[in-house]
């Protein structure tokens, strides 16, 4: 596989085949944990790590897994890496671990991870899979960061814990509530559609 091809595998996850905005996968953690920027970053990186490593392993063993136990095997591999991430956070960043709560283990069923295994890694070579996973993971991460920034800024008036908004600003509490997350993501999707429409017109 040429460098060019690896690059396209990487790039596509950032916009064209964006896992969240295009494929509507991995919604749950996106909505749940983006109350602050730092959560978004940590979750994004955690997911990226899991996608990359599972893509790697799934791609290695792709030829020997019989279809009857395919999902079980993938799930086991994913669960292993997720547990590692979980343990890592618990040991080194206990605060974040607490904030992310049960959503770290839920990376296991984050549809993106399994989705990439099923859709890509089990059909492609190791490096392509790794780059694909990386692209998907980083694509996911940037949206989490955007969501986290907007929600933290509007909902608490801070970014990364620092107060940004002037003191007369009355925080829109709804932004850090579930409802705010859904609404914001809805609007973001619409914005994305709009950009795409513009692109098609021109």
């Amino acid at each position, binding site marked *: 596989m040429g460098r060019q091809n690896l690059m396209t595998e990487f790039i596509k996850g950032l916009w064209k085949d964006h896992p969240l905005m295009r494929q509507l996968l991995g919604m749950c953690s996106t909505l749940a944990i983006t109350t602050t920027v730092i959560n978004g970053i940590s979750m994004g990186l955690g997911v990226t790590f899991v996608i990359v490593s599972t893509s790697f392993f799934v791609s290695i*063993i792709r030829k020997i897994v019989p279809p009857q136990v395919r999902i079980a*095997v993938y799930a*086991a*591999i994913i669960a*292993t890496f997720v547990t590692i991430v979980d343990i*890592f956070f*618990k040991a080194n960043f206990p605060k974040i671990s607490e904030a992310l709560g049960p959503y770290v283990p839920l990376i296991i069923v984050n549809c993106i991870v399994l989705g990439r295994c099923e859709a890509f890694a089990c059909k492609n070579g190791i490096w392509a899979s790794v780059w694909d996973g990386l692209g998907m993971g980083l694509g996911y991460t940037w949206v989490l960061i955007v969501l986290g920034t907007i929600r933290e800024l509007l909902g608490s008036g801070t970014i990364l814990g620092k107060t940004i908004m002037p003191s007369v600003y009355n925080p829109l*509490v709804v932004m850090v*509530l579930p409802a705010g997350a859904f609404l914001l993501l809805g609007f973001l999707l619409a914005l994305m559609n709009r950009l795409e429409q513009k692109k098609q017109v021109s």
Partner: protein
Amino acid sequence: MKETIKIVSVLTIVCILCAFLLAFVNNAARGQIASNDTKKIEDAIGKLAPLFKKTEKLNIAGEEIYKLFDAKGEVLGYAFLAKGDGYQGVIKVLAVINPQIDKLEGIEIIESVETPGLGARIKEDFFRNQFKNLKVSVPIECVKENITQDNQIKAISSATISSKSLVNILNKKISELKKQLANQ
């Protein structure tokens, strides 16, 4: 038959490998995680009783209570965890009480899921500071208007439920504690 063997062996081997990997990582990180947990509690206690140097864990009726000592080895008081239902979910609070068990040294909210801007304000200083040196020889009361007695705190307006819940949680635990420590 060959396929069956393949199915069985692949899944089994993957499971074994995964478990092995996990056990290994877990083993490496376990110490750190455990110390994180104690550190978190000690940090919280440290905020409420800055003088403490040493804790002694008392295990009474399955619940953990920390006896606090200062640098000279004198008893500073007790720290305990209490939890119960708030407005939306569980509130978990750490409180430090004086050795005579009649006055609170302060409280620290460990965990809560109250509404930001309303119930979540129980975490804010203006509210928590009311518990500093609060008389607890009689049950704490939560009032909506001005405080008239030294066992009262003022509820957060528009979050009466959260405030009351917190007071109830504390009252319940303190009365248990009194009994338990008396038994000791």
